[in-house]
């Protein structure tokens, strides 16, 4: 992501920062603040996927599993009435890191379509594991109480929660940016373009890819922890393989390999999910909206065929005047 495209990131984040204020000004229900909050959380997950997908060339079809593990970490702590966020969030990092390490160690020994399938398989395994956890609701899920941060911030206030998530997104976006522009990031991108050459140059590519995989899993886990808080409910459904598919779509839609592209992609995807049915009802006929997936499907195909760069590349073609 070159410097001249950074304006997209700055503009995007500025807009996101303004949204709750705009919602208050226009006296819209708090529902909309919460909606954008959810968008940011999933954008974080999508961004973590882009780290390994766009920069490392690893097509993980099981990334939603880290959303699940993060959610369940918070959920299980909440179940045992340990609501302290200072315990839950670091624990999430550690647990997701361990899972990502184990899954990565086994998956990265394969490549190509085998890699795709094995990441899917591991995601399914954890999904079924979640269903089997009777104690924690199994298939039905269980309610979760929002994390406590010892009086520093009240997550039960929608506005505070929004800016809490915003801050984390900003922080991790910055972190990923630094990673990508470091030597580590260069090697990673080298692996994507030609792994054999990197190996010939003496780089232990497996280790670099595994490290990236683990970092990505940890970030996605944080997104999961935030999601459990947002939803006040956890269930295995968040690890369903179609959720992993959604994450891939969000990354591609926004622009793979750009870090902020996935954020844009998530915004577009979730807004479409919310409003496409309403638009279809209005533009076509009432009841048409029920079948919005029938429009999403072909849209997705067209996207893949013709707009591979996603929104980010479309925006990047705009030239702005300085000042």
């Amino acid at each position, binding site marked *: 992501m070159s410097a001249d495209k950074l304006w997209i990131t700055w503009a995007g984040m500025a807009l996101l920062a303004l949204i709750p204020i705009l919602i208050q000004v226009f006296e819209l229900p708090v529902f909309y603040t919460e909606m954008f909050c959810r968008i940011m959380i999933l954008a974080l997950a999508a961004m973590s996927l882009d780290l390994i*997908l766009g920069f490392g060339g690893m*097509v993980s*079809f099981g990334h939603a599993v880290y959303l699940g593990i993060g959610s369940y970490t918070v959920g299980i702590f909440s179940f045992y009435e340990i609501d302290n966020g200072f315990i839950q969030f670091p624990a999430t990092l550690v647990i997701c890191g361990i899972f990502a390490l184990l899954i990565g160690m*086994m998956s990265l*020994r*394969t490549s*190509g*379509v*085998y890699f*795709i*399938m*094995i990441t*899917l*398989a*591991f995601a*399914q*395994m954890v999904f*079924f*594991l979640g*269903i*089997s956890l*009777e104690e924690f609701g*199994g298939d039905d899920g269980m309610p979760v109480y929002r994390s406590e941060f010892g009086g520093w911030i009240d997550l039960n206030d929608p506005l505070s929660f929004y800016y809490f998530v915003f801050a984390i997104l900003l922080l991790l976006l910055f972190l990923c940016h630094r990673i990508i522009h470091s030597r580590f990031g260069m090697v990673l991108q080298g692996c994507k373009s030609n792994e054999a050459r990197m190996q010939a140059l003496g780089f232990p590519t497996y280790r670099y890819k595994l490290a990236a995989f683990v970092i990505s899993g940890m970030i996605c886990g944080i997104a999961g922890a935030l999601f459990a808080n947002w939803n006040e409910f956890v269930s295995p459904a968040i690890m369903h*393989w*179609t959720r992993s*598919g959604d994450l*891939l*779509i969000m990354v*591609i839609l926004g622009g793979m390999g750009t870090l902020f592209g996935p954020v844009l992609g998530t915004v577009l995807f979730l807004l479409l999910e919310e409003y496409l049915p309403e638009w279809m009802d209005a533009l076509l006929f009432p009841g048409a909206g*029920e*079948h919005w*997936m*029938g429009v*999403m*499907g*072909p*849209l*997705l*195909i067209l*996207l*893949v*065929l013709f707009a*591979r760069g996603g929104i980010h590349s479309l925006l990047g073609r705009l030239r702005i005047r300085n000042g």
Partner: protein
Amino acid sequence: MGLLLIEQAFNGLQFGVMLFLIAAGLTLVFGIMDLVNLSHGSLVMVGAYLATTLIEWTGSFLLGILFALPATFLVGVVVEVLVLRTLYERDHLDQVLATFGLILFFNEVIRIVWGPASLYSGLPEGLSGHVEILPGVPYPTFRLMIILAGLLVAVLIYVIVAKTRLGMLIRAGASNREMAGALGVNIRMLFTLVFGLGASFAGLAGMMLGPLTSVEPGMGEPLLILAFVVIIIGGIGSIRGAFMASILVGLVDTLGRVFLPMLLRSMVADSTADGVGPALASMLIYILMAGILVIRPRGLFPARTG
């Protein structure tokens, strides 16, 4: 217990044979065209729905299926020509996303035409009874028929692939696509034909599943995932691998689902065992797959050399 084991083994065989019908097409398409097709499960659904409607129109179970098979073949051909052709040159990620989009599209079309709720079709009188496969073990006739039909198709596929010229072309294409093309094989038509055949087999699985349970939008997805596990275990591009793996997966899943809770019940509380058992049995298959990939990274009987 012995009789139960045998009866459950038959159940596992029936499930495995159904998986084979789906996996066969999938592995061929994957092996020859190097195409990851997530929408293969949708073809199962399409076949099931077409059969349900045609059975209703013709009033005959046999006629309905007989007409539904070429209809599904046609659907497969149309999808291949319109959408999949553009994907052959693309990387796997693009294929995954585009065929994911196809799933969404197919599901919605079915929902629009037939409605979102499940449809139930009956079986003709002659098939809704039972047969004693062993003394004291009455087994549903229809399930027996599924096993027989599946085995017949397996033999048919074997004959085509091993004994005919078409089969030779398929094997050549699976083994090394570029070379086969360079040698003058009409790759385009071969691809379309193979895809159409795969679609018919998948549709047949759906047609048999329908009367057993029900048909609904999205019914193919759970089977799709299992089919992918099967072809990974069996080896991409290998029909023999797909067959062995399907039977293996079918047996492991069914026997696991039944006997694992029994095993667990001797250790933990009943309802926990009944909740954990099926989930654990579902995980077994993925554990199996992961294990096999560790020792044989290309599956049990890989067909690819190039």
